[in-house]
């Protein structure tokens, strides 16, 4: 396609690692809190008259509109896309899946491509908001290169609606300077320590999916349980734990960094950033299990620049391009072709690419988990207790 480096040196990798855009989840949280998520950043000229594309321009139109999360793409890749196709990439940044869903339900977003998380895809299909993908237009998508669970989550009733972008896990970060040598390996320890020597030092997410899900893991239940009796156990645990919590917030990096908090539920990208800067902060996947998530590329129904949408997704799935993306945003790819181009040090990183025996018990969040009214009410009772 375009001139992409297919090899990245160790030094370059470490430099990139330190260059990680700090706190992408923090920024998501920020966007949520402010409602600024709807505000959009425009990369590349949005005004057609100003775009001087090469001769190839016109085939796929002058632009592709992408709705995505903050700091989730390498801008250099977008420049290369424009150079290759003449189409500019216009980026809209969002704070949450719920916000994206609300926008699409309201209609006429003008988006061509967006990046839903696994547990929202069936909802989008059910609401008839996304179109099945035509794989003949995505030659770079090779389902055989993915672990089946990633490929499967993009399909509903045998039809492919979304292709995997990158994935991550939800575990916890713990400052080992305060554990007194205890090896932290489970969700049981997470909650028990919080009610004991870590009292006043632990944070949980302000997100029912993960906070309730991980409390369910304490008892060995499914992360996705909507069973009344199991939820009641989780609620009792959370209410007991609440007086011992430092905060209920998804913006945990500042408190972990300045030492106010010693332990927090944590997404793997944040875990990597904390561990890189402060080595005594470890990232732990509970051995009972927990969450694994993956973001996908999908095309909304009625996308105004449909051809550009396919061209952009296909371009971003090109292993050389995708490898640059991974180095930029710091979340692992499930694509074997992409991983083949990434440095060993990254693939052996226990935080980003956990060992198989830790990954296996992890569950994808389910659509029903996110939308279950009982879990929402449980979270409200927990927060107001």
């Amino acid at each position: 396609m375009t001139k992409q480096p297919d090899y990245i040196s160790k030094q370059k990798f470490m430099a990139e690692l330190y260059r990680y855009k700090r706190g992408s989840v923090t920024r998501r949280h920020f966007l949520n809190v402010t409602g600024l998520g709807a505000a959009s950043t425009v990369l590349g000229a949005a005004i057609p008259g100003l775009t001087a594309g090469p001769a190839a321009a016109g085939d796929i139109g002058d632009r592709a509109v992408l709705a995505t999360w903050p700091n989730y793409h390498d801008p250099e890749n977008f420049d290369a896309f424009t150079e290759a196709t003449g189409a500019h990439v216009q980026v809209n940044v969002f704070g949450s899946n719920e916000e994206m869903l609300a926008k699409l339900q309201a209609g006429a977003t003008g988006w061509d491509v967006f990046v839903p998380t696994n547990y929202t895809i069936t909802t989008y299909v059910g609401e008839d908001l996304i179109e099945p993908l035509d794989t003949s237009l995505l030659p770079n998508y090779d389902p055989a290169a993915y672990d089946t669970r990633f490929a499967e989550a993009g399909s509903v009733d045998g039809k492919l609606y979304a292709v995997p972008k990158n994935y991550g896990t939800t575990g916890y970060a713990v400052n080992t300077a305060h554990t007194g040598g205890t090896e932290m390996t489970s969700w049981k320890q997470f909650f028990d320590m919080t009610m004991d020597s870590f009292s006043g030092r632990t944070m949980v997410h302000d997100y029912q999916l993960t906070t309730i899900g991980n409390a369910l893991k304490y008892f060995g239940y499914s992360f996705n349980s909507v069973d009344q009796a199991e939820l009641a156990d989780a609620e009792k645990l959370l209410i007991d734990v609440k007086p011992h919590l430092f905060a209920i917030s998804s913006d945990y990096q500042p408190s972990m960094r300045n030492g106010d908090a010693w332990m927090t539920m944590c997404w793997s990208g944040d875990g990597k950033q904390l561990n890189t800067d402060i080595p005594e902060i470890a990232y732990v996947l509970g051995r009972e299990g927990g969450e694994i998530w993956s973001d996908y590329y999908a095309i909304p129904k009625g996308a105004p620049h449909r051809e550009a949408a396919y061209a952009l997704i296909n371009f971003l799935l090109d292993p050389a391009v995708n490898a640059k993306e991974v180095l930029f945003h710091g979340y692992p790819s499930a694509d074997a072709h992409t991983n083949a181009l990434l440095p060993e040090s990254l693939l052996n990183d226990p935080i980003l690419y956990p060992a198989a025996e830790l990954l296996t018990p992890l569950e994808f969040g389910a659509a029903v988990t996110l939308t279950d009214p009982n879990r929402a009410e449980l979270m409200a009772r927990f927060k107001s207790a």
Partner: protein
Amino acid sequence: MTQRTRNFLLLAPAGAWFLLMLVVPLSVVLVFSFGERGAAGGYVPAFTLEQYANLPARWAAFRNTLFLAPVGTLSALLIAYPLAYFLAVRVSAKWKMLLLVLVIVPFWTSILIRSYAWIFLLGGKGIPALIEFIGFPAIRLINTPFSVLVGIVYGYLPLMVFPIFVSLDRLDKRLLEASSDLGAKPWPTFLQITLPLSIPGIATGCMLVFILLMGEYLIPAILGGGKVFFVGNALVDLFLQSRNWAFGSAVAVTLIVVMLATVTVYMRFMARLSANRDDVSLI
């Protein structure tokens, strides 16, 4: 053009704004509050009182709001009054403008950024570290109701200072001289002249702050660590997390009703309080 048409044309923009931006959206909220939640969230048309019957589920949020809003308003008043008094009565005209600008300056930065700054001031390496350094025992400030109160008073102080400042600035200084000539000491003069005459400013400031506090969600979310839960936070969760628009609308309508009732009672009380003092103005 008749007077009538002209009046109509002049009022039309404000009227259209009022209709489109207030009446229509509030009607939508009212209609939604009688509906049901869709399977994947959102709103499904229905006519049911189920959402209102479910209100006790958010009682804790209402209780917290109805406690902290008056406490926050009173705290802001106690801090703002001496400041406004100082600005209006004690400071020379030359300094007055500069100091007033300094009161406004924080408004040029987003309340979100300023609240984040407090995280670090109240956090373990901020004020508590200083207190410990001086030799007092370590205390936890951040993520407590106290830190929320600090954030609230800080955030809304200018809204309280200005109305009080205006009422004190317009105060006829001859009344103070008269009081003094008649033998009153400074404190009785303050209680009998200055304070009563500044009641309109106090009333306006308190109302501004109180109404905004009833809908506050940002400061508790940031400085309360998510552990201090207001109606505003309940609404944000209902609309943005669990996407239960019907129940969210019912909570919103209830908040508006509670607020209207409180403010009506409050205004009656304040009107009576200042009406008694009408005779105190000099011509």
